[in-house]
C-alpha cells in the first residue's frame, strides 16, 4: 500500500533555516545541511527547501544551500522560492533538486508549468499554492502570501494539473506557523479535485493534526517545519503514532 509521506520543510534565508509565523517574523533554527542529515537519519520521506525571501528580494534560491542539502540525502528533494524561469529551475536541478516548486511565477505565466514538465517530466514540477479563506472561498495569494490574486485554490490546482504539474504543495496562510492544525477542509477540497498528489502544509502542531489531515483532509503527504525542528525523534515518534491510527507510513 502506498504510504502517506512526511515531508520536512527547511525555510532558508541567507543560508540558515528559519521558521515564519504567518509568513512574517522569522526565527532561526539551524544549518540546513545538518538538519537534512538528521531528518534523513530519523526516516523523513522527503525534504523541501524553500528560499522564503527569494521572490520578494528578487534572489534565486541559494545553489550552495541546495548542493549542501542534496549531498546529505538519498530521498526526494524539492526546491522552491524564486523559481521564475526555466533557467532558475535548471540551476536548482543542476544543484541537486529532484523537483522544483513554482508559485508566483506559475500564477503570472501558467505555461511555465508546461515548459518545465516537457523538459524534466511532470514528476519534477510541483505547483505551490498559498491559499487563504476569504468570503467562504479559498483565495490564492502570490509573492510569499503578500499579494491577493483573483484565483480560487481548487480551480487553480485543476488548471495546474492540466498544464503539467505533478504535485500540489498546498499551504494554508491562515494556519501557517500557528500550530493549530492543518486546514483539512481546504486540503480535502483540492485533493478531491485533482488526481495528482496533494501535500498539505501550514498548521502542524500535534501528532493528531497529521492523523486528521490524512483522514479528513485526504492529503497524500503532510509537510511541517517547526514540529520536526525543535524536537528530537519527532519523525520516528510521529510515524509510530500514525501506524497505531491505521495510517500507512514508511518505517
Amino acid at each position, binding site marked *: *500500500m*502506498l*504510504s*502517506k*509521506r512526511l515531508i520536512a520543510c527547511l525555510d532558508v534565508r541567507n543560508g540558515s533555516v528559519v521558521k515564519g509565523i504567518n509568513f512574517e517574523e522569522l526565527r532561526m533554527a539551524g544549518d540546513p545541511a545538518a538538519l537534512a542529515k538528521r531528518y*534523513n537519519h530519523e526516516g523523513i*520521506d522527503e525534504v523541501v527547501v524553500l528560499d522564503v525571501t527569494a521572490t520578494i528580494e528578487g534572489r534565486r534560491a541559494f545553489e550552495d544551500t541546495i548542493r549542501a542539502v*542534496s*549531498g546529505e540525502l*538519498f*530521498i*526526494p528533494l524539492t526546491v522552491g522560492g524564486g523559481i521564475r524561469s526555466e533557467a532558475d529551475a535548471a540551476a536548482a*536541478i*543542476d544543484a*541537486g533538486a*529532484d523537483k522544483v516548486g513554482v508559485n508566483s511565477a506559475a500564477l503570472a505565466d501558467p505555461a511555465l508549468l508546461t515548459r518545465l*514538465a516537457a523538459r*524534466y*517530466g*511532470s*514528476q*519534477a514540477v510541483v505547483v505551490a499554492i498559498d491559499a487563504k479563506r476569504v468570503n467562504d472561498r479559498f483565495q490564492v495569494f502570490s509573492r510569499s502570501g503578500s499579494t491577493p490574486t483573483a484565483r480560487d485554490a481548487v480551480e487553480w490546482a485543476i488548471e495546474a494539473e492540466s498544464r503539467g504539474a*505533478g*504535485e500540489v504543495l498546498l499551504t494554508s496562510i491562515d494556519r501557517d506557523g500557528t500550530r493549530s492544525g492543518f486546514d483539512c477542509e481546504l486540503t480535502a477540497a483540492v485533493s478531491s479535485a485533482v*488526481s*495528482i*498528489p496533494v501535500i498539505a502544509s501550514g498548521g502542524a502542531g500535534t501528532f493528531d493534526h497529521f492523523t486528521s489531515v490524512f483522514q479528513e483532509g485526504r492529503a*497524500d*503527504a503532510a509537510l511541517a517545519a517547526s514540529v520536526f525542528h525543535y524536537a528530537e525523534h519527532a519523525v520516528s515518534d510521529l510515524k509510530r503514532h500514525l501506524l497505531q491510527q491505521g495510517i500507512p507510513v*514508511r518505517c
Partner: protein
Amino acid sequence: MIALIDYGAGNLTSVRKGFAAAGAELFTPGAPSELGDADGIVVPGVGNFAATAALEGDWTASIRQAIDRGVPLLGICLGLQWIFEGSDEAPDVTGLGAIAGKCSRLPQANGLKVPHVGWNSLHKPRASRLLQGVDESTQVYFTHSYAAPVTPEAAATCEHGAVFAAAVEVNHVFGVQFHPEKSSGAGIQILRNFVAATRS
C-alpha cells in the same frame, strides 16, 4: 566504467550521485559507438515513453550488442519500461524487447491516485541478484503512471490499483520501476548490487 545513457529524458544528477555513493563513477557516452568499452549500461528516464524513441535505431542496436557480450544493463523507471516491447503510452515506439509484454496505464481504482507517487513496498517472489540484501516489504520511492506487467522475469512486484513489475531480472538485464537513487539505504544497496554485477 558504467555508461549512463543521456537521451534527454530528465535530470541525471541524482542518478550520478546515487552511483557515486555505491562506489561507481558513470560516463555519458556521446554516441552509441562509445559503448564498446562499457562494463555496464544504465538507462534512466522519466516522463513519457515517447522519449525513448531517441533510443530507437543505433543506440538500441549497440545496447543489444553489449548485452550479447555479457555487459549488465540497468533500466530505471522509464528505463525498466523500455526493456519491454512497448507501452500503450506511445504505441508507435518500440522498446528493447528483452522481456515480452507491453506497459500500460495503472488503473485509477478505489479512489487511488495516478500518478503513483511515493513510498510503496516490494514483494519479492523469488531470489534476485539485484535485490540481494533488500528485505521483503522494503519501501522504495516510485513516481510513474504507466507500469510493466508481472511476468516470470519479475524480481519484485508492487501494488497500486493493480499488481505490476517493480523490478525485473533476466540474466544480466535488470530493471527497477522505482528510483533507487531516491530510495534511501535500500536504494543504494540495489545500485551497489548492480555495480557488483558489472565487476563480476
